[in-house]
């Protein structure tokens, strides 16, 4: 009995050291010969699946550049494993080492920075309003007494709540269970507007039966820095990722990648999102930083 206890204690200690080592991603992937990339099934053009285990998108492609540099640092070819993650499990999976690098659409904020680390901001999301083109709504002030849709489990819900409190515009919130449902609320007339990340709105409109029936209007309700996420306290890997992004930004390749995913026709349907880079995006590429969303609050 006592012997078992000692064994257990030793095993726990060993596990403890193993966890400590796990924070060195470069050593970890070198030893394993593989890297696990966290991807999203449908995060707009940032990360999405073509089916059949294939994942593409703006952030997926940036991650592939980072992994190419990681291979140089590790001195060997790495096998890339894709793991689909969700809003609910992405942070725990990065924390516990299941996922080495998350290439989805994660907002960089202060609460998350306590748990994980972010690379330089590569995409700045603008929260906007989508309406039916014939509704005549052009700004949030016109939403008084209207039904406004957004998606359960997103930061837009909180944003809408704060906005309602701040502006005194009294609208009724309706919540879709996912983005497709929220768009259906708008399409079926249950909602007069859909408030969400601009690229998600653009993607839903582009994929709808009649894209011309909808438009994105009004002021930018919020800006959020979206970045690639990995484990905390791993300065060597963070530097590698940041340097990769800095290199892409300097050579102008980052802007080209952006154009490829946000203004050109993209698979599988070859639809254009038609979202040229915003000023906030260009600014993030010029002045590279990993500031959280709190630093973007209204100046």
């Amino acid at each position, binding site marked *: 009995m006592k012997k078992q206890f000692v064994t257990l204690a030793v095993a726990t200690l060993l596990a403890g050291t193993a966890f400590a080592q796990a924070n060195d991603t470069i050593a970890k992937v070198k030893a394993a010969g593989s890297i696990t990339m966290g991807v999203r099934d449908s995060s707009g053009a940032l990360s999405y699946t073509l089916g059949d285990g294939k994942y593409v998108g703006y952030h997926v492609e940036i991650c592939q550049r980072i992994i190419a540099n990681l291979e140089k640092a590790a001195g060997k070819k790495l096998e890339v494993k894709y793991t689909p993650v969700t809003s609910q499990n992405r942070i725990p999976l990065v924390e516990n080492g299941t996922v080495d690098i998350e290439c989805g659409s994660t907002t960089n904020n202060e609460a998350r920075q306590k*748990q994980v680390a972010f690379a330089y901001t590569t995409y700045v999301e603008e929260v906007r309003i989508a309406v039916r083109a014939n509704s005549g709504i052009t700004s949030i002030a016109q939403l008084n007494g209207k039904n406004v849709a957004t998606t359960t489990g997103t930061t837009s819900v909180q944003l809408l709540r704060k906005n309602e409190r701040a502006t005194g515009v009294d609208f009724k919130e309706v*919540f879709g269970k996912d983005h497709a449902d929220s768009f259906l609320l708008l399409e*079926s007339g249950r909602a007069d507007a859909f408030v969400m990340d601009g690229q998600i709105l653009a993607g839903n409109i582009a994929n709808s039966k009649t894209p011309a029936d909808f438009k994105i209007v009004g002021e930018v309700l919020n800006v959020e820095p979206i970045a690639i996420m990995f484990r905390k306290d791993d300065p060597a890997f963070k530097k590698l990722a940041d340097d990769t992004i800095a290199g892409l930004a300097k050579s102008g390749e980052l802007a080209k990648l952006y154009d490829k995913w946000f203004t050109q026709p993209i698979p599988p349907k070859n639809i254009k999102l038609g979202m040229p880079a915003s000023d906030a995006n260009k600014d993030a590429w010029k002045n590279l930083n990993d500031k959280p969303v709190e630093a973007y609050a209204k100046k």
Partner: protein
Amino acid sequence: MTLDWQVFLQDDGGGRTYLEWMFDAWGWTLSVAGSAWVVAMVSGCLMGILRTLPQDTRLNVWLARFANAWVELFRNIPVLVQIFLWYFVLPKVFPAMQQVPGFVLVVLGLGFFTSSRVAEMLRAGIQAMPRGQRYAAMAMGFTTWQTYRYVLLPIAFRTIWPPLTSESMNLLKNSSVAFAVSIAELTMYAMQVQEETSRGIEVYLAVTALYTLSAFAVNRVMAFVERRMQIPGLVVAGNVGGGH
């Protein structure tokens, strides 16, 4: 992993704490489940009775067919799909339904879904009784209504009470689908707050505790009623053995 329960005292941005919001959400869960329970019981019992009517008049034959169709319709479609049918599809066909709030639709959807199961139980409960009971009532000169009221239903309800308890608890847990039509109940609260606060473990633990507490309360109330309406010697408690 350290748990940070203080997250519930934070302001949610709209002037209330996450704790206050959670109790609001709990209220919605209980309202949806409670209203749907009433719908399920009323329509379920009605359908169950219709299915067991004596097939001696043309009207009774058609009523039984209607009740059979009702049960098959509502028990063959997944509950989440039914909610969507009520919320998105029917309003396309009947535009007036667009004005009906999600709460009413989810109560109807959930209530009718459960009613098909209640109807099946009641039918089984009535048919499990010896035929002689019905004949005896008829021999006494009871009308059909009196046969059900004084002979069949009192026994049938006592027989089916335990599965009805499970069904009532299921109804409470199934009310979590209401989040899909924008009711701010506990499941929606959990999904939303874990995203806002990144404290998913605390949020899910708290919500789990509330669901467990509510379902267990339903269980206790039903068990109390079961004990109070026992007829010694007629329907015997499970642990005694024997029969009629």
